[in-house]
């Protein structure tokens, strides 16, 4: 009898326990979804930059006061705790012994500024937005957190974040002020609402490094006796040759000439550069990441026109249709995401892709490590005619902002975070360990661990010049810590360490590296920037997503040959009538106010 009783107890107990525990979920970044599409900017070397000339900073570690410590880098005594939330790219790697609560930044901020950082939760990039929304609903906002422009607007509207105008005025160090005032102060302007600064925008991402290049398998070019492209006609021919010439030498016609995926426009396998060659500047990414609300407008005859419906786009679409017919584009591209198109390239099935400067770091580096004989070269965009090709480049408007919850007792802490970052990366006490640490021959970035980041636009570019100088003269003394890192990487690659190939491809030579070619782009300022710099208007918010679906579908159908190229004109009419006219009206209203 007792035995039976015990076993029924046991059963009941188990069931109850199971029910109760089923409500518990595990947070803290365990669920890793591979981040889709766009640039894994956290793990590419130096998305921020280091200016070669150390300017005056304000390392004022004096006068500890009980409450808010004075000075840009004043220390809090007793220490204060600031809560924050973080997100990370799945490529993030920690050096042994370090983690989110124990790294150069947490330790530095604790020791030098008396600020203890408490991470309330940490999730993968793709889940950050949703998790933040949950926090917002539950009223559980951390002291400092990162938001997009749209979230910033929502927070300002709801009156949930602190006014940072005074905090910035009183506490920002000179370095921080310098970084945030670049580009005519557009970054601060974007974060200013009704004359009050409501967020600290991200600085240092405006160096035009979202311009595209052409990445080509140079070993395939060699095999087929082809020269690198000098015009869009060359690009067309190369693409077709890659299909028919059996460049991988396996006797099967299984290679493609141009990498395209469902995003259409992207930093990897995007068509931005292709369109640029025909003087078209469309930009409306499809796929999961595209919102349809970041639209590109060009100034024509005193008015703003939507870039994606210009006649030049039609010409380029016709060329893409031609390539598709010739078999140069993977027929499945319309359902492939960025990871799949990366696989296509790294498995040696496609020989040409348009992309941004960091493609050598991902995904091409893995391919190089596996098979060092594979050769990818990088080339400048080319034009279809005599006019120079302008590259779409829109990163002068910041995309990331740091805000402070209204309930926080120390709104100035966010400014101090920035000061600390700037000082340790660009100031007199800068050290390479705040940018990256090396372990087992691999460079592991640490700058992404800082709660607030900033930088100067031209750092990467300046580092490139320093590296070039050092390579010529052999004189290492003028190199900044990051530049030295690249310099060493290049030399070690040239000595045979294949894993450091990305350094060569980004900073190695004037004609064969991203920053080398970018410096050529910059000589004549060959860029096309969005003429519309405001936040998405109500019409864009309302019709943007539906119009994006329409556009992506039409473009895809034209490329695949399911619609004739002339269907583009019908699309333009459709776009205008389905809300496009309203969008143009509002955008031009903004433009007129700015004149």
């Amino acid at each position, binding site marked *: 009898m007792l035995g039976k009783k015990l076993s029924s107890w046991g059963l009941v107990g188990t069931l109850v326990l199971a029910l109760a525990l089923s409500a518990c979920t595990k947070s803290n970044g365990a669920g890793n979804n591979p981040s889709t599409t766009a640039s894994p900017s956290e793990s590419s070397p130096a998305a921020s930059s280091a200016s070669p000339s150390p300017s005056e900073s304000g390392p004022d570690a004096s006068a500890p006061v009980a409450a808010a410590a004075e000075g840009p880098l004043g220390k809090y005594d007793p220490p204060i705790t600031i809560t924050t939330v973080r997100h990370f790219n799945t490529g993030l790697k920690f050096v042994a012994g370090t983690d989110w609560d124990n790294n150069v930044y947490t330790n530095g901020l604790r020791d030098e500024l008396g600020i203890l950082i408490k991470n309330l939760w940490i999730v993968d990039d793709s889940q950050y937005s949703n998790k933040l929304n949950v926090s917002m*609903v539950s009223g559980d906002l951390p002291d400092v957190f990162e938001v997009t422009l749209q979230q910033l607007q929502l927070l300002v509207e709801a009156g949930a974040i602190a006014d940072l105008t005074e905090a910035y005025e009183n506490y920002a160090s000179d370095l921080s002020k310098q970084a945030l005032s670049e580009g005519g102060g557009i970054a601060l302007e974007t974060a200013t609402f009704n004359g009050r600064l409501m967020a600290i925008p991200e600085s240092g991402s405006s160096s035009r490094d979202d311009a595209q290049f052409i990445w080509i398998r140079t070993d395939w070019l060699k095999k087929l006796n082809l020269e690198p492209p000098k015009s869009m006609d060359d690009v067309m021919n190369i693409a077709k040759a890659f299909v028919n010439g059996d460049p991988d030498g396996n006797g099967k016609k299984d290679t493609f000439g141009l990498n395209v995926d469902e995003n259409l426009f992207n930093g990897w396998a995007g068509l931005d550069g292709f369109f640029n060659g025909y003087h078209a500047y469309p930009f409306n990414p*499809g796929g999961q990441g595209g919102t349809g609300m970041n639209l590109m407008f060009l100034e024509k005859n005193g008015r703003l026109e939507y870039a994606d419906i210009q006649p030049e786009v039609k010409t380029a679409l016709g060329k893409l249709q031609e390539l598709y017919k010739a078999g140069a584009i993977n027929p*499945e591209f319309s*359902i492939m995401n960025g990871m799949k198109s990366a696989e296509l390239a790294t498995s040696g099935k496609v020989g040409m892709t348009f992309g941004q400067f960091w493609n050598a770091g991902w995904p091409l580096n893995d391919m190089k490590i596996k098979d060092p004989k594979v050769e990818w070269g990088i080339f400048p965009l080319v034009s279809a005619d005599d006019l120079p090709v302008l590259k779409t480049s829109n990163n002068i408007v910041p995309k990331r902002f740091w805000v402070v919850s209204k309930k926080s007792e120390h709104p100035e802490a966010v400014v101090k975070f920035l000061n600390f970052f700037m000082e340790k990366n660009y100031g007199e006490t800068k050290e390479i360990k705040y940018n990256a640490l090396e372990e087992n021959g691999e460079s592991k970035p640490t700058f992404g661990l800082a709660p607030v980041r900033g930088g100067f636009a031209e750092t990467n570019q300046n580092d490139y010049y320093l590296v070039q100088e050092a390579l010529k003269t052999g004189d290492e003394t003028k190199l900044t810590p990051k530049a030295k890192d690249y310099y060493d990487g290049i030399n070690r690659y040239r000595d045979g360490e294949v894993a450091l190939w990305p350094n060569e491809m980004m900073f190695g030579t004037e004609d064969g590296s991203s920053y080398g070619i970018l410096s050529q782009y910059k000589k004549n300022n060959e860029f096309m920037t969005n003429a519309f710099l405001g936040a998405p208007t109500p019409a864009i918010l309302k019709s943007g997503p*539906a119009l994006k679906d329409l556009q992506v579908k039409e473009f895809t159908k034209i490329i695949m040959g399911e619609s004739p190229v002339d269907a583009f004109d019908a699309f333009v009419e459709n776009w205008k009538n389905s809300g496009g006219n309203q969008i143009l009206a509002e955008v031009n209203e903004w433009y007129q106010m700015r004149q």
Partner: protein
Amino acid sequence: MGQSRWARDWPLHLMVWTGLAFVLVFSYGPMIGIVIAFQKFLPLNGLFGSKWIGFDNFRYIAHMPDTSRVIFNTVFIAVMKMIAGLIVPIVIALLLNEIVVKAFKRTVQTIIYLPHFLSWVILAGILRDVLSPNFGIVNDFMAWLGMPRVFFLGDERWFPFVLVASDVWKEFGFGTIVFLAALTGINPVLYEAAVIDGASRWKRTLHITLPGIVPIVVLMATLSLGNVLNAGFDQVFNLYSTVVYSTGDILDTYIYRLGLHNFEFGVATAVGLFKSAVSFVLISVSYLLAYRFANYRIF
């Protein structure tokens, strides 16, 4: 000598009340969130601070250009899934019932039930490879037979059928087992009597087997009727892409895109409420019909 009822029954009470508490807290409690459907909801203002706008969210949905197309897609796909999801398990159950070798029967049962445990994320990846127009085995097989290659996941004409077929493949195991169980409940004496009277196998199926499982079929049909607006977000989200939106976009994925990018929580909740209301009506109606026509009380 005789235990009191309480001393005998308390483990049962514990199980029931725990489950009930769970349902109350996680299913009934959150119903208060329905008010979001009538508000211009901003997460920071919370449930009680957001502006009340009455039926404006519903009006907004009704006026969206794609709403009617999306609702059509949802109903079309869901109805097809329901029908196929009834017929296939019944047929398979009938076939399995005829098998004499118990071991084989049980093995087959287990194998067909396994896909139910795969998540759509995994299955989507598999399906993409299998259905690929250039490298997939389905198309390779079709080409070998001389048929033209079909871009299943990228062609808006095929996409809904791919959804239905893959979903049926994944879930028919569950229905099959339910119907098999129902089949074993049919009195074998009826079969023997029919054989004596000279009924063929087909006639036996038609007049004994099928009527014998009608109550279960009605039950399964009613349960799935409540799902008519639930065409399966998980599956569609993992398999669709912009090019198949016109036939593959269902209510849930449409609202997901709206809600995610525009932070239109009020609208998303309004749609959810609408779906629940429709399901409620349908289940009530089918319960009444089942009672009237099949004399079958579900609850």
